[in-house]
């Protein structure tokens, strides 16, 4: 998956989660930039990404992600590990 494909997938997931089709995520987007993306919905988003892409973030990841770009980078890395292994 390219970064843009990952970003598109994230956008779709967050739209589904928050029932808001106006959401468009960029790499610089932070949680505070998106209406209703609170800490509960952050957990839900992480769970949804993990389920959809078949990956598992570390607890240090989920605690340190600042921007959507951070999540994209880590996702790409986990997906690559997967295909490499």
């Amino acid at each position, binding site marked *: 998956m390219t970064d843009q494909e990952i970003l598109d997938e994230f956008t779709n997931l967050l739209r589904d989660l928050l029932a808001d089709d106006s959401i468009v995520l960029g790499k610089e987007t932070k949680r505070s930039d998106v209406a209703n993306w609170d800490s*509960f919905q952050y*957990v839900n988003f992480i769970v949804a990404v993990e*389920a959809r892409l078949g990956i598992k973030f570390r607890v240090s990841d989920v605690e340190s992600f600042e921007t959507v770009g951070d999540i994209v980078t880590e996702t790409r890395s986990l997906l690559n590990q997967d295909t490499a292994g």
Partner: protein
Amino acid sequence: MTVSWLPAATDFRAGLKAALAIEDAGERLERLAALAQFQLGYLETIQLDNALRQSACDSHPGFRPIRLALLSSCTIDHLLPAIRTAGLRQRLRFEIYAGPYGQYRQEILNPGSELHTFDPEIILLSLTFHDVVASMPLAASADEVDAAISSAAGDLANIWNQAKDSIRATVIQQSFLNVAEPLFGNHEQLFPAAPGRMVARLNDRLIRAAGEEQILLLDIAAASARDGIDTWFDRTRWLQGKIEIAPQSAPRYGDLVTRLIGAQLGQSKKCLVLDLDNTLWSGVIGDDGLEGIIVGEGSAVGEAHLALQRYAKLLKERGVILAVCSKNELATAESVFRDHPEVLLQRSDFAAFAANWTDKAENLRAIAKQLNIGLDSLVFVDDNPAERARIRESLPMVAVPELPADVADYVRCIADAGYFETISFTAEDRQRAGQYEANAERESLRGTAQSMDEFLSGLEMIVESGPFTSIDMPRVHQLINKTNQFNTTTQRYTREELSDFAADPGNITLQFRLADRFGDNGLVSVMIICPDSGEPDVFEVTSWVMSCRVFGRQLEDEAMNVAVETALARGARALRADLIPTKKNAVICDLYRNLGFSQLGEPAKDDARTRWILELSDYQKRCTFLTRKVPDND
């Protein structure tokens, strides 16, 4: 995926969009409920729940509203959408109150709390082990551990009793997830203070308490042992947000909660309908013959089919009715049960046997009619995906498990679905299978009798009646909440409410048992009669139910004779009663008129209920063929 007995959704997103575009609120809700019949992951339960909230409407005919309070000591917000969507699947509309974390004691004990204002019908306590039991040194003695567990269990029992007494709610206690990592190894359970041992001990106490204190047990510890603890507990989520039940297990959790509540409300299924070829055995009996089909010991596939038969037989012992629905020649199909030495089930195990070339939907309708139960009481098990799809489409109220590809997993799939969840195992349940056989004998008497009177007198029926006693309560509760046809008001009650009625000396409670020469039908009818607060000499029949097994036996006439005598003895002048029509109780639409009641006015425009009155001085005692049993005096 944890709700594996449901079919996979094809395009959930599109289905949701289409449902939300529907204008009519009732139709929209039906479409959303249809989506809930598919296997939904965590994200999908949230989406469906969002849609449900967007399309909220005040009235939702066909769905039973229910107020549930969820009290917890850790994060449970993620479980609410799963409960509400699983509820939709069972035609329950949950209104959920989630109490503040860790405040469950205060919420229950303080009459001014939000919980009391919410006035739940059901309180679910979702607690973690460390909130109830203080940690102990590993060197603690067995006695010290005993004392700690007993004190925790006693503390919980206090909370339950407070909830039952002051809120009149049914209490559900969730068992404790055993997330302790082993310290000692294989002998873990030998050391009293080993953390995993302590959790197991407390869970054992809960199981006992569920029997003694009449609370309901939500046994997620057992479910997690079945699914694997890592499915239920995700350490990252726990660290991230004190989420003990992993979000991925939320759909399964929601289903466990609703099936338990459904069982309490009498919504559990009653009848297992089985296909034959490639379901109860491998092969096609019409083509392969007795020698060609594979079933029984000696072949792995044969043993897998036998396991399904064995499970069906156990369900029958539990009181579940068995039936056959198969595309076959009747004689050929029946011959398997008579002539195949390895087949475990017998022809007489089935209360209904539809083997023909008619459409299966037609046959299921006929089976429900013959057994006098609703289509929504049926579970249809068929290996053929096309037949399953056909039934889901034409009879959506019939439960159809999505059998896995491997016959080895058939039993697991049916068991996981929890269709026959029950909170009691009464004498009536144990005898039910025999009662259907006795019914067949009664039917043959009906065939030979020259007249209805001859048939009824030939039955030699004996009726026994009296107020509810504590021994009767589980069956009274079961009957009153399960009965849909002969049910005058379809009012459902919790066990606590029924005990209250029975304990109030002003009320009249009556239960009726009916036996005849073919067998004992057990406790088959219940009446609750309360004095009117304004006119104490007028008594109101607030509930009257009767099991469909004894329709047409004049029991309603004899029951009314008893009710009138009892009311007269209490100084009553008249009996009044409401009859609230539903989709299912048309069979009693003329009940009160036939018993000599007069109608009070005309039904209101938006309420089909009719009101009836009987001046006791006018009552003409009904003549019946039932003999009253004189109570023993010892």
